[in-house]
């Protein structure tokens, strides 16, 4: 029967083992809900542990089976494209997810909130991000992206008794919906123009990236395609937090629960960059257009992020705006990757991935300290709450200093190596103007990063408390063993990776664009 044969042929390329980690995450998420129903209330404490250990297992499986044998192949009818870059990003998102879950156990303990749903949604979002990193088709890209975004709508407003959290969720919803609309409009334009039978290179399956790339190569300078590309880049720029789509960041980062802010800052941004790199590859025939758009955005993003962060004293807003400037530096790397020829573009791609990894280590170290210092009002975290941290909690102080130093880009920490690799790639690509803006940005960022270290370490005179007055600083959560191990490993990894990048660094520099 012809239909059965057609379906069989289409299903030939459904290699379910290729997405085994994502499937495992999905099953684990459902398992958590099942455990919540089955186990009695007093044993619910074991469920976050199940989530974390389960994800560790999935990560271990992914790393042991790193070279899956699917490299370079398209599966699921061209929906997914497997590559070493994709594998790296999957491991990255799993690691971020594990760290968010650990932070979640600490933060949720201070609130009276339902707990298990948090871990469920985090795992679903991570699974979607992992699929996003391998996407080869606009449909899958959009569906996965929407899964991530909708999951984040819920996570951002998770602390539903806090008005700032609800406000943050609403702001994220509205701006996110706008950006999804722009992205969709761009996708549809590209689909439409690539499906036009009168143009050379058109195909019926123009949602597929390979087919789209062929069309764009055959039609350089098509106006509708250009508009589509710019709109798609705008949709991606929202996820990254690039100017002019960054306005949601301070408020959403402040209102969201601290682990969710960490997840947004690291994983959501990384997801945006992994899509950006894939799309820049697809849009390579229009490299002049993408380079112009991205260069202007990168310069504006670096300047805005750094200047706006100067005046912040709420640490969550500070981290959010400083993250905007990091997105700017990464965008310089992305421009360099698309401008440089063959072998050199690998260096730019490796630079971006290394920078993201160093950013993950440093950000989670800082967010870990923030989670321990947060009180019951999660949105109210000010710089003055960090006074005397170096004295009373030297371990947390040291981890904070290492994390902030790495974010500022100071040797010998990993963040500096990331910045260095991006600067070298940018110089080779001839992006001298962007480099100048970048070093201005680094100098400005010293003020607020070191200002934070100053707040934690330097002693300032404070008026003694009057009778009956309580210390306005929220109490600091004692560091549990698991959290201590996590923070120590992140700090140690930052220092070691700054000195010695070893085979990891060499492998990253060899990844293809």
């Amino acid at each position: 029967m012809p239909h059965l044969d057609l379906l069989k042929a289409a299903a030939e390329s459904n290699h379910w083992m290729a997405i085994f980690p994502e499937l495992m995450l999905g099953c684990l998420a459902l398992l958590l809900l099942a455990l919540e129903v089955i186990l009695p209330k007093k044993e619910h404490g074991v469920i976050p542990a199940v989530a974390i250990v389960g994800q560790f297992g999935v990560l271990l499986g992914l790393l042991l089976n790193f070279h899956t044998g699917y490299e370079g192949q398209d599966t699921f009818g061209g929906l997914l494209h497997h590559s070493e870059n994709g594998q790296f990003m999957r491991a990255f998102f799993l690691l971020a997810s594990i760290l968010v879950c650990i932070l979640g156990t600490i933060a949720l303990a201070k609130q009276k909130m339902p707990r298990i749903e948090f871990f469920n949604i985090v795992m679903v979002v991570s699974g979607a991000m992992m699929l996003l990193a391998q996407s080869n088709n606009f449909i899958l890209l959009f569906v996965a992206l929407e899964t991530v975004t909708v999951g984040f709508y819920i996570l951002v407003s998770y602390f539903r008794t806090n008005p700032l959290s609800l406000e943050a969720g609403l702001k994220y919803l509205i701006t996110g919906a706008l950006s999804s609309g722009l992205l969709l409009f761009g996708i549809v334009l590209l689909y439409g123009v690539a499906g036009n039978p009168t143009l050379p290179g058109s195909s019926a399956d123009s949602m597929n990236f390979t087919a789209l790339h062929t069309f764009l190569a055959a039609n350089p300078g098509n106006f509708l395609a250009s508009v589509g590309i710019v709109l798609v880049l705008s949709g991606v720029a929202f996820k990254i937090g690039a100017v002019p789509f960054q306005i949601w960041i301070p408020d959403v980062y402040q209102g969201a629960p601290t682990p969710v802010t960490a997840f947004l800052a690291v994983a959501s941004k990384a997801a945006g960059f992994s899509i950006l790199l894939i799309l820049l590859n697809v849009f390579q025939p229009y490299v002049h257009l993408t380079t112009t758009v991205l260069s202007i955005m990168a310069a504006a993003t670096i300047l805005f992020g750094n200047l706006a962060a100067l005046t912040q004293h709420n640490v969550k807003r500070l981290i959010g705006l400083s993250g905007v400037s990091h997105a700017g530096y990464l965008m310089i790397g992305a421009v360099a990757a698309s401008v440089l020829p063959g072998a050199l573009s690998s260096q730019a791609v490796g630079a971006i991935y290394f920078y993201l990894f160093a950013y993950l280590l440093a950000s989670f170290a800082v967010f870990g300290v923030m989670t321990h210092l947060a009180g019951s009002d999660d949105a109210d975290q000010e710089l003055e709450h960090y006074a005397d941290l170096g004295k009373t909690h030297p371990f947390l102080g040291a981890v904070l200093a290492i994390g902030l130093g790495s974010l500022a880009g100071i040797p010998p920490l990993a963040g500096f190596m990331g910045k260095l690799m991006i600067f070298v790639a940018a110089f080779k690509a001839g992006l001298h103007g962007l480099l100048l803006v970048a070093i201005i940005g680094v100098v400005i960022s010293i003020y607020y990063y070191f200002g934070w270290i100053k707040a934690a370490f330097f002693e300032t005179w404070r008026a003694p408390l009057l009778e009956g007055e309580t210390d306005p600083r929220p109490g600091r959560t004692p560091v549990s063993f698991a959290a201590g191990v996590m923070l120590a490993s992140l700090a140690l990894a930052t220092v070691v990776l700054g000195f010695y990048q070893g085979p990891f660094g060499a492998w990253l520099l060899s990844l293809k664009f």
Partner: protein
Amino acid sequence: MNTLPVDLLLLSIATPLAVALVISLGMPLRLAKGFAAAAFAVPALVALFLWSRFACEPLHHTYAFYKVYNTGLQGIGIHLALGLNGISLPLFVLAGVVGLAAGLYAIQSNAERLKTYLVLLLVMQGGLMGVFASVDIFFFYFFHELALIPTFIMVGIWGGKDRSYAAMKMTIYLTVGAMLSLIGLIALYHQSGADSFDLITLREAILAKGLSACVSKYIFGLLMFGFGILVSLWPFHTWAPLGYGAAPSSAAMLHAGVLKKFGLYGLVQIALPLLPLGVVEWARPLAMLAVVGNLLVIGFITIAQRDLKQMIGYSSVMHMGYAFLGIATFSVAGVGGVVLMMVAHGFSVALLFLLSTSIYHRTQTFDMMEMGGLAQKAPVMAALFVTATMASIGLPGLANFWGELTIFVAAWQFSHVLTVLAVTGVVISAIYGLRSAARVFFGPQTEAFAKVAAEKPVTDLTCCEKLPALILVAALFFIGFWPRSISTPLNSAIEAIYHQPAVHAPAVAAK
């Protein structure tokens, strides 16, 4: 080519860093002090040992004890290449010995949270050893920046007046300088065509290919201003007196004594040999800024200082004027004089900062108008202070004399007018140096000091304070009487690097 069984250079860098990590994990204070003393001693002993062996070592393109390690970034041409040549050897010894003195002084200082202080000093020391042992220009920059966070925290927690503002200003200024030099170094790596940051490979690539005058000019400009800010070139110097005035003594000793030499060493070792056309273009402006700005303007400001530590800080900015003048002459004598001067200045300014803190502990003030007659109670301290002052003025018999003399001789060929102005710098340093010695140690006791002395009797230097000071004085006399120990390997290295056909400097028209 390393003929030793153990890579001593890597050992001297790794020991302070490893011990810093071990101490930060937690241990009793006495044990920490012992470990720290050992960790400061190892680089100093290694440096002295390598100095003694240098003359009979085989050289690999002027470098002895050369060893290359892969750290993973070979893809962009970065390797950890370690080695010493005639230019870096004296500075390596400077770093080791001043580090030992600063470390010993810190250990006996009884500061609060001493373990944290020692950990930060050890990180700084590890970085300093790495700066002068690196042949790779990227790691040269990398090890220098290791000092940034420790300095910020040390000045902010253990510092003196205005420490919070001083720490932030210093860090921002130093980052500006560092970023400019980083871009300059990356530009050098890229334009040379060599796919490596290794200085030997860069030299060969530039000799083979050559750099155009335009490229050479702009890279040298970047490096000159970047390194210049790090070395407090006028008018980018304002961070230095403020920062050194606020810094705790050991941090000030390491920073002013050793870390500042990073920029000058970078110019001498990297920029001058590789970018001769750029040097010719920038030599006059640099010399003018150095003489008029650093020597004269800052010299007069130094004379006006009442605060002892600020005065020493300004004087170190002033002495950098001699160094920039020597670099601008672009001759073997001039550059050799700069290296000699760097080493001598490092020892003398470290000694001055050490003594100024000891003075503060006895008089409870840095204001020179409120001291006087200290020599009666503390004759050893007075003798050491006068020696340090004489060294900084440039008295023959002490190390600084040789450096300054050579620079003046070289500068005379370059420009008569600037040399005459530069020599007046000697008179200026004599004025403030001798006056400070007179005000602090000799003459009648002021009322303010008498009150302080009544509450807490003034004692001379303790033996723990004397040890680091004597180490530094011994170094000053040793080099003062036997400068050949440094200048022989130095001259052969400079001639080997500078007198290659493609980098031979065209004759600079004497004014």
